[in-house]
């Protein structure tokens, strides 16, 4: 089967070692992670891990099943890019003197929708939010100014689906265990 980029979203308890438990499932199958991000969600105590990785669908479906099997994980989902809205943030550190020579700086900033976060006599920090190809495009453009540092975050995502699957899971647990909820 053909390899494509998948986004794997994992909703878990905020316990020590959850990230390790999830990443070793990729490691065991020799799947290289393209990006990772982790953060709290709107539901108290529930954390979201987001991974991107290349693989074929059948393999990735099994990976998601294995992730969801972990005790500390509530739900895990597999998405292709068309099913989600997603963003990444990139930061670029460029020597200020080289940027100032450029007559076209305004156009670059404007064209890419980038922002300037900090300027010192030595360097300027630019920020760009967008998809991978967009942050990559700015990177290509800034290359000639001798980029000193470049960093891109993991992907953050929300689904386009009208159903909030993890909320459904939490509601189901609350319904089945009204006396316990939300404490463990």
């Amino acid at each position: 089967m053909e390899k494509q980029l998948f986004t794997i979203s994992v909703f878990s308890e905020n316990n020590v070692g959850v990230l390790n438990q999830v990443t070793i499932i990729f490691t065991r199958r020799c799947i290289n992670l393209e990006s990772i991000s982790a953060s709290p969600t709107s539901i108290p105590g529930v954390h979201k891990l987001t991974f991107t990785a290349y693989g074929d669908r059948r393999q990735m479906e099994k990976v998601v099943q294995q992730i969801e099997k972990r005790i500390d994980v509530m739900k895990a989902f597999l998405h292709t890019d068309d099913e989600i809205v997603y963003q990444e943030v990139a930061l670029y550190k460029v020597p200020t003197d080289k940027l100032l020579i450029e007559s076209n700086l305004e156009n670059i900033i404007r064209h890419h929708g980038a922002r300037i976060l900090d300027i010192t006599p030595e360097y300027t920090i630019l920020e760009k939010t967008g998809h991978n190809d967009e942050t990559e495009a700015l990177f290509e453009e800034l290359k000639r100014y001798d980029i000193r540092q470049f960093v891109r975050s993991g992907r953050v995502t929300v689904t386009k689906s009208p159903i909030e699957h993890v909320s459904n899971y939490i509601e189901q647990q609350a319904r089945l265990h009204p006396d316990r909820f939300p404490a463990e």
Partner: protein
Amino acid sequence: MSNKINGAEALIKSLICEGVDTVFGYPGGAIIPVYDKLYDYTSQLKHILVRHEQGATHAAQGYARATGKTGVVIVTSGPAATNVITGLSDALMDSTPLVVITGQVASSLLGSDAFQETDVVGIVHPVTKWAVQIRRAEDIPAAVARAFYIANNGRPGPVVLDIAKDAQVGMVEWAHRTCDYIRSYIPVPEINNADISEAARMLNHAERPMILSGHGVMISGAENELRMLAEKADIPVAATLLGLSTMPSDHPLYKGMLGMHGNIGPNYNTNRADVILAVGMRFDDRVTGRLDAYAPQAKIIHIDIDSSEFNKNVKAALTIHADARQALQALLPGINQTRRTAWLDSFIPCEKAENEKVIVPEVHPQGGMMKMGEVVNLVSRAFGDKAIGVTDVGQNQMFGSRYFRFTEPRSMLTSGGLGTMGFGLPAAIGAKMGCPEREVVLFVGDGGFQMTIQELGTILEYGTAVKIVLLNNNFLGNVRQWQQLFYDGRFSQTPMVNPDFVAICAAYGIDAENVTDRSQLSDAIARMVKSDKAYLLNVNIDPTDMIFPMIPLGAAVDEMMINANEMFKL
């Protein structure tokens, strides 16, 4: 007045509250506070001092598999914790409930490469159902309750509690904690009635249905439901290696074992059935053979409590995410009473061929050295087919599982998924401790026996009356068989120079005898059966004996060798 106790005592009281009466373990520096408190609780908590931590885990597995209760292990940090990895991995593969408690260095020292420190939780994550480190005494009671809940609910598995030394000595207000809910874990899913109706419809419309009975049937205690369903709809039943003894061996609908060295009938008819009801099994590669040739004609109904098993290896037409017993109970009323004489009769030629070409020459050989099958058969009979059979791994395991017979459940303990040589002896000890009223007989080879032979010391210390049948061919027999069949008879590193096993047993105070000739075999077995103590028979086995039938690697489930030169043909 405060009723504070230290964390070590809280651990022991929590174990007792969980119904634990036996633990297997080995003391060491980072767990001394627990052993100190154990000293005060010996009347309530029996500690079995094994001779190696790996032995503790396999003994706990034997105990758990024979009783259905959670096996408990207590060991120290560092090397002790790394020594339990094999047992954890084995228990995860074979869905065995274990709670393994490892001592850990004081939390102030964590990460400093302290003496006997190892990253236990980091190491064990891939081989446990759950693992947690405890650094405060007050967290112990809740963690123990959670560990037992996880280990023995849903699909059972091993859990590790890594308890830092300061948590063991810290003081805690004692209160018994229980656990029957974890927000992120639904151990037993709700049954979907539409799936049950669909399964009943498929089975009622089937002409050649077959049931594959796995370990999940035993774990959920669904043996009766399975038998009732099979009888009502006249469906032949085959068992996986770990599903052995879910049906009595002499039941007319029981058609034997599946897989690489299973019986011809169920393997052959796997590729003839139109509907396959797979219950609590996971389509291991040793069961399926080549996947693209596995039951392509059949609609498969897969019942399992672990949804990650669905469509992992074999695509199912219908998946039922449920406890096996609950699912079969729900299924039973909708199943039509049926007779399927022609389909059941189709097993007969397979059985006849297997009997003639494989079983009779193995079990009733005309002269020559003794064979493993004949020994297993006689031992099984001598115990009235009522003993718990334990095997090690290799030829002894396959002969044991083929020729040992069962009348009740939980009568065959073997390392299935991981295939751990050295599993047998400690597992037999644990099984006997869990079921002292039952006979426990171990079939073990000379290779695997020496991997955990130190546990003879445990037998010596506790007088555990396990019966040991050492199927000794002075070879690593299963590898030898592959070398014979597929590697031009180049016996690389498989012949073994062995010690005098009877003398070793004498040193451990264990009755033992050599059985060098067939003429001695029956009497020796009778003496072993009669003994109420541990007993070992060192049986001199034909090293050229091979286990058949055999589905070679890469072959389809119905492509079976019946000897080194002949494929099964109907």
